[in-house]
């Protein structure tokens, strides 16, 4: 068991003792168990699994940073988070299509980075839904 604190711009989302955390960093998936060494990592858009009291919970995470301090407690500082139950697959698929379409057109008037971010968000939700 170790402490996990999830902080978003809207406040503290979760502050709980958990058993395991699996998250997509920019370098790949990483699972964190109790007693992990201090670590600072950059979190990608993607799914996250938590095991709390033997029960696995799924979330979609919208990028940010992960920090484990010397006592082994984990802070997750992210732009946004959805639970699997909150995800509307239909909507995510639509916005994925829209963003892909925009990226393909490469029109100067369209904000490419915005389309890219929205694509990342959609993919993160879809992956979580399917996990």
């Amino acid at each position, binding site marked *: 068991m170790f402490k996990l604190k999830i*902080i978003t*711009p809207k*406040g503290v989302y979760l502050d709980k003792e958990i058993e395991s955390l699996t998250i997509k960093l*920019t370098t790949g998936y990483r699972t964190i168990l109790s007693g992990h060494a201090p670590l*600072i990592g950059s979190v990608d858009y993607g799914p996250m699994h938590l095991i709390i009291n033997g029960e696995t919970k799924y979330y979609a995470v919208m*990028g940010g*940073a992960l920090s484990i301090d010397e006592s082994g407690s984990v802070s997750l*500082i992210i*732009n946004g988070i959805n639970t699997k139950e909150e995800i509307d697959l239909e909507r995510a698929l639509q916005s994925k299509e829209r963003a892909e379409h925009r990226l393909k057109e490469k029109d100067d008037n369209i904000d490419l980075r915005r389309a890219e971010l929205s694509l990342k968000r959609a993919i993160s939700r879809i992956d979580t839904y399917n996990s």
Partner: protein
Amino acid sequence: MSANLTKTKRRISSINSTKKITNAMELVATVKLKRYKDTMFENSNYVNEIVNLIHKLSYYKSSDKLSSFELPNNATKDLYIVINSNLGLCASYNNDIYKFVEKNIDKNTAEVLPIGLKGDQYYKKQGYVIDESFYDLNEKIDYLKVIKLSRYIESLFLSAKYRNIYLIYTRYINSIKFVPDMIKIYPLESDNEVKREDRLEYPPIFDPDVDTLFDELIPIYTSSLLYQKIVESQVSEQASRRTAMENATDNADELIEKLTLEYNKARQAAITQEITEVVSSSLDK
């Protein structure tokens, strides 16, 4: 005399309706103030955590290699992001910022990116070169929009369009005191206070390496900073509006009291005069 009476009566009723409006606005501002204060409080956690992380990273960053966000460029212009309000009736809130801007910005070497309708109109009229892309950002503060702004200025800086990027906002001290303030966003000032002794004997694992992490965290830091300051400005604006409307309501009360007294006096005088006229005319007979 009766003309005077109607005039006073009309003034009283007009002040009464103004009072209703200022009173309602005061209530609205009070509610909004509370909401924005809560947002500011909840967000402070996030900002603190990010600042902590950046500090931690800068202990271990190779000091000879500056990140591209720290490197000065050779552009000749500065960009000022200025936060004003969208609505009026908030006492000297906007005016204080205008004065601050006039004192600190040189029109010839600077451009303004206004946030808020009032500022947009004012700086245009004053002849500043302005960038209107985000003037309605604070109408309904949305974190995603703030991220967009942060990416926008990041690309402006990295493409060497501006030498410095500043943010002018209103710092909230307490519910009756707030002052315009300015902070530098880019280039990041390297923190000289970072003590190498604060390093742990065994550094944490970095995933990926420190310099990449630093470059990835800076945009997150910038958007959280922008968001925090925009919310803080909103808190100041609502506090300013609340105080202004409270004073206006008090003034209306005072004025109504004075005018009612005047009205009653005039009415009494008119009655007395009529009685005198009736009595004197009956005596004449």
